């Protein structure tokens, strides 16, 4: 990200030069993500939000593949351009196939892409949590509790919930996708 601010941007993405003192440790050596560079406007929130997001969306009891399925699928359902583009690249990095990624993005058949019964239940759960407006249907809740340990269900649900928060954040603030990510997606035939 350039140190120069886009005058058309809804909020400034703080470059390294303008990063508040307590935000600097989140900038690392490379280019900060737009989420980091925007949250830096409120460093006391950045200090709690980024570790939370990292913990909620990173691997714990569930592995990276499962987490990326949850993040990408939720982001596609919420139509978050930034999150879909960014996590398409991440999903490919952690080993999801092009067909699996396309299916999660709503550009292919999920049943064809995912043959594992447990993953299919997880995806159904993700869809219900991401799009639902009330309790999850009892039949799906039963299937999920049979396929997943309780702690896995908690972790998966929190991953979807945290992604929903980020989806709305990134979409409302119209955060820009990095040029490197866009170039990579274009090379792979993704929008």
């Amino acid at each position, binding site marked *: 990200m350039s140190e120069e601010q886009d005058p058309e941007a809804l909020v400034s993405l703080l470059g390294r030069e303008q990063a508040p*003192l307590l935000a600097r440790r989140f900038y690392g050596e490379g280019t900060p993500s737009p989420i980091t560079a925007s949250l830096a406007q409120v460093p006391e929130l950045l200090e709690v939000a980024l570790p939370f997001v990292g913990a909620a969306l990173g691997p714990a009891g569930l592995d990276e593949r499962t987490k990326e399925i949850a993040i990408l699928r939720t982001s596609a359902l919420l139509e978050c351009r930034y999150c879909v583009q960014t996590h398409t690249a991440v999903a490919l990095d952690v080993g999801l196939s092009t067909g699996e990624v396309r299916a999660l993005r709503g550009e292919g058949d999920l049943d064809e892409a995912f043959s594992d019964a447990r993953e299919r239940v997880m995806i159904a759960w993700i869809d219900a949590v991401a799009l639902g407006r009330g309790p999850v249907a009892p039949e799906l809740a039963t299937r999920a509790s049979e396929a997943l340990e309780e702690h896995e269900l908690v972790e998966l649900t929190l991953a979807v919930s945290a992604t929903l928060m980020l989806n709305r954040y990134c979409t409302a603030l119209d955060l820009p996708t990095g040029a490197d990510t866009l170039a990579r997606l274009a090379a792979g035939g993704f929008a």
Partner: protein
Amino acid sequence: MTALAEAIAAEKIGGRVWFYSNYHCNLQCSYCLTESAPLVKRRELGREAILERAREASALGFTGYGVTGGEPFILDYMPDLVAELGRELPTIVLSNATLFNERRLREIEPLADLPVHIQISLDHPDPVENDEMRGPENFRKVVEAIPKLVERGIGVRIATTLDDPDAADPEEQERLCELHRSMGIPDEDHVVRPVINRGRAVSNEMGVLAGFEQLEPELTLTADGAFYSPFAPTVRGGRLDTDLLVSRTTSPLSAAAGSLVRIADDLPAGHDASIGIR
């Protein structure tokens, strides 16, 4: 003793909490940190907010208050506010002293009985040179105001801000000192400090660079949040600088003060906090 009071006693952070009362000003000085001018965004902190934070600061163990801007005395409530602050802790107010008409002078007379000082900017012993940086008629208004304040028993300090203090003409400096002595201001109440290369001084290519390692940590509250030093909440090109922002949260004050202490704890050994508003 609170943890914060211990940090102040150990000189990890300064004992004075600063309030940026507002950012607008009747002057438009060439080196202004905040690009203050009559029509800029006011960023007014507010009388009640200042008093509430001041009460918290006193309870936490801060030992003094500072008020700066902008020009604080452009706000009608400033004389009363400063008196209230001064009744709690020693207080210093930075002012250009160009708004002290008879009515204002009457309003600030109660400050004479309080541990309050008004720190007034006067940069040069000659009107032309002084007014080059600070605006027309500034010198005349200042040298008229200072004796009136002194006569009323109000504490006055003089601050001289120079592009390069090391290159200052000794003869000019001596004439400036003769001038402030003639107005009743002793040498110990005259400070000379460099222009800091932030705000309008950047546009005018003036002053010395100062990162956070060169500045003393002093909790500084503005309408935009808590900052590391009174040199920190600067404005450049109309945009507030955030590089020395501590937090947007200013209430409870303990949260912002705690964050400042955390930052101060991480200061590298041997850092040189040699530039401070006095």
